[in-house]
Each structure stands twice: as structure tokens, then as C-alpha cells.
């Protein structure tokens, strides 16, 4: 039985309600839009802010065993999820599309993570801020596993004379992609600044903290517009992919919660970990896949993640995973 109060508490927050407003705007045919490059401003801000805050938290907690275990578990999941996702997808799709979608589900969704973090703050449930390091480190392994799948199983189809994308270019894309770079960079900056004492952190916190919820709200309004426009494409993708987009986060979150219990994560941290595994990347992975697997159809790997898995996690997933976690992991 789903805890309706908890679900409502998540849905009736400004970010999620504005997400619905965006979806509604598209469904009703309003001309509401947030013109480019304003969404970019919001996403740059959000990445910088969570990176910085994560770095500060990392410095505070130190590079302890807990940190290493949590981040290690995230990297492991980012490498394993693409493998079993690929096997499932191959029952219906070709190698290229299977590998690209698998990589997207191995990696994670920064906005889902941020929304979950905001939700925890509203509930005043404690969590480990350093999990943002896991967020930053999940993109790269998923991209690399996705690429290896294509290289090992699909290489022969490449026609001679066609451009060849080297492993170097892929690793470059995996680690220097603007989102990954800004996230890791801000994390390091936060770490260094926190080492100097509290003044530097406090000065920037006015910016990274106070604005955060508002920018997130604006960004989710935009994501509502974007996700709703993707819904149509998804309908064309057929029931197999629709089912995949809803079941996959459930499976990944279930595994993640089990692992979190074994590793002794707190309830809050376990939610973040579950959400990291349940999310599908639409930031770094698509750009990398487009370059390395141009045979795959971007509308497939973007639409499943953005049109369905993302709203599913935001609306149903976050409160659901937390409810499960509360029955599995004791409150600390």
C-alpha cells in the first residue's frame, strides 16, 4: 500500500507542481516556453550549486571508508545496469539502439537527484551530501560500457571510408562533457574552499543555497514542457519501450535499496542512492552516444528517459522508494 500522505507531500511541492504546469501547457497547447538559452542558465547554476555543496560536504566528512564504499557502489551499479539492460533490450531492438539506451539507464539524472535532495530537506531527513560525488562519477562508466558493447558486438557493420571514432575521443566525451566537467570541477572547488575555513563557503552559500529551490522550480517548469513534448515520440516507440521505461527504474531502485541496506547507508542517503540508480541520463550520455553510435536513434534513448522515466521517478518513484526504504532500513 502506497503511503498517500508521503506521495502528496512530494507532489504538492512547488517544483513538482510547476513540472505539472509545464506538462499541462503542452497538453492544452499554450504557447508558454522558456526560450534558449535560459534553460542552460538554470542547468549550469544547478550543476555548479550541487557540485559546490557536495564538495563542501565531502571535505566535512573526509575521504572516509563510507564515502569510498558509497561512491564505489555507484560506479559498480553504473557499470552493471547497462549490461542487464542491454540483454533485455536486445530481445526487441538492434545492437546500436540497445547499447545506447542501456548506457543511458546505467548513468543517472541530475535533476531527479536534485529533486530527491530537495524532498529530503523538506522532510528534514538527514543525508550524506557527498553522494553528489557519486552522481558525478556515474556518467563515465556507463558511457564506456555502452561503447564497449557496440565495439565488441557491433563493429563489423561500420562501412569502410566512414569516420572512425577512437577510444580517446570517447573517454574525452565521457570525462570532459560539459555537465560532468562542471559538476566535478565545482566539487573540487567546494572541497578546496571548505578547507580554507567557513568564510568562503558562507559567502557563496547565499547564492548556492537561497536561490536553489527557486531555480529548481523554474527548471522543472521547463522540464515539464520538454517531457510533455517527448510523450508523443514515446507513443510511437511502442509498448515494449514504454514498459521498459517504467520497469527499469523499479528494478534498479530495488537493487540499489538492497545494496544500500547491506552497506549500512542511512535512510536519506539510501534514497539518493536509489534515485541515482533509477534515473536515466539525458545529459552526458546522449551527447556521447550520438558521437560513438550514430546508428542509434536519439529520439529513442532521449524520449524514454526524458518523457517517461524522468517524470515517473519525480512523481511516483521518489516517495515510493522512500517508503520501501523506511521498511527496510531502520531510522538512525
Amino acid at each position, binding site marked *: 500500500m502506497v503511503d498517500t500522505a508521503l506521495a502528496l507531500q512530494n507532489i504538492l511541492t512547488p517544483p513538482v507542481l510547476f513540472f505539472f504546469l509545464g506538462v499541462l501547457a503542452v497538453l492544452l497547447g499554450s504557447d508558454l*516556453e*522558456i*526560450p*534558449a*538559452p535560459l*534553460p*542552460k542558465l538554470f*542547468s549550469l547554476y544547478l550543476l555548479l550549486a550541487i557540485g559546490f555543496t557536495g564538495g563542501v560536504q565531502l571535505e566535512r566528512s573526509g575521504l572516509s571508508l563510507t564515502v569510498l564504499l558509497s561512491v564505489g557502489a555507484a560506479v559498480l551499479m553504473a557499470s552493471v545496469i547497462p549490461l542487464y539492460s542491454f540483454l533485455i533490450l536486445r530481445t526487441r531492438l538492434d545492437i546500436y539502439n540497445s547499447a545506447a539506451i542501456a548506457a543511458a539507464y546505467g548513468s543517472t539524472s541530475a535533476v531527479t537527484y536534485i529533486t530527491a535532495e530537495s524532498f529530503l530537506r523538506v522532510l528534514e531527513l538527514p543525508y550524506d551530501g557527498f553522494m553528489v560525488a557519486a552522481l558525478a562519477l556515474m556518467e563515465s562508466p556507463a558511457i564506456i560500457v555502452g561503447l564497449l558493447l557496440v565495439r565488441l558486438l557491433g563493429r563489423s557493420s561500420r562501412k569502410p*571510408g*566512414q*569516420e572512425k571514432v577512437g577510444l580517446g575521443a570517447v573517454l574525452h566525451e565521457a570525462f570532459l*562533457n*560539459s*555537465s560532468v566537467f562542471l559538476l566535478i570541477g565545482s566539487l573540487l572547488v567546494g572541497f578546496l574552499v571548505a578547507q580554507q575555513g567557513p568564510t568562503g563557503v558562507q559567502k557563496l552559500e547565499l547564492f548556492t543555497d537561497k536561490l536553489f529551490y527557486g531555480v529548481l522550480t523554474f527548471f522543472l517548469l*521547463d*522540464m515539464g*514542457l*520538454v517531457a510533455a*513534448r*517527448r510523450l508523443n515520440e514515446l507513443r510511437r516507440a511502442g509498448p515494449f519501450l514504454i514498459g521498459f521505461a517504467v520497469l527499469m527504474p523499479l528494478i534498479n531502485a530495488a537493487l540499489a535499496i538492497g545494496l544500500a541496506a547491506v552497506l549500512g547507508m542511512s535512510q536519506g542517503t539510501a534514497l539518493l542512492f536509489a534515485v541515482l540508480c533509477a534515473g536515466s541520463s*539525458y*545529459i*552526458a550520455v*546522449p*551527447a556521447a552516444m*550520438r*558521437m560513438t553510435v*550514430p546508428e542509434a*536513434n*536519439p*529520439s529513442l534513448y*532521449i524520449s524514454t528517459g*526524458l518523457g517517461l522515466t524522468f517524470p515517473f521517478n519525480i512523481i511516483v518513484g521518489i516517495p515510493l522508494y522512500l517508503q520501501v526504504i523506511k521498511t527496510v532500513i531502520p531510522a538512525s
Partner: protein
Amino acid sequence: MNRVDVILSERELERLTSVIDSSGAPGYSVARHITGRGAHGLVASESLEVTGLGTNVHVIIFCEEPVAEALRTALRPLLAYYGGVAFVSTCEPI
């Protein structure tokens, strides 16, 4: 003289400009934030801004015919691999 119009994803812009530079073209101009539809489907501003895939660029090169010919040879594999279109027409300097 020739006018060459190339439209492709902004992620390939650097590759394209280095092709143009080595073709000997006297210059080029780039318009960003181009959306559209082609063989690879719809490129719509909102979602591509969010996904990091970006939108298209429209690059114009005014050049002599031999340069356009060199461009043709260098552009084809690029367009074949990554998608995009390119067209040539004639014009005169003012």
C-alpha cells in the same frame, strides 16, 4: 562565385570549421540555435538544450568554385557519418 550552405549539429561545428579552414575558403559565417527537421528527425530547441546535444548550426561560405569543390570532397564523409545537409548556389560579390 559560389555560396555554400551547410546545416548540421552544433556538436560538429569545430570539425566543420577546420574542414573549411583547410579548404582555403576566405571566410565563413555561423548562425547558431538553428532548429529543424531532416532525415534524422526533429531538432527542437527545448529538449536539445537540456540533453546537451544542442541544436543545429547554419554555416555559410562565400567562395570561388575550386574551394567549393574542395569543400564538397571534405564535407561528404562528415555529413554521411553525423548527418546534416549542404547545398551550393551561385552569387556575385556586391
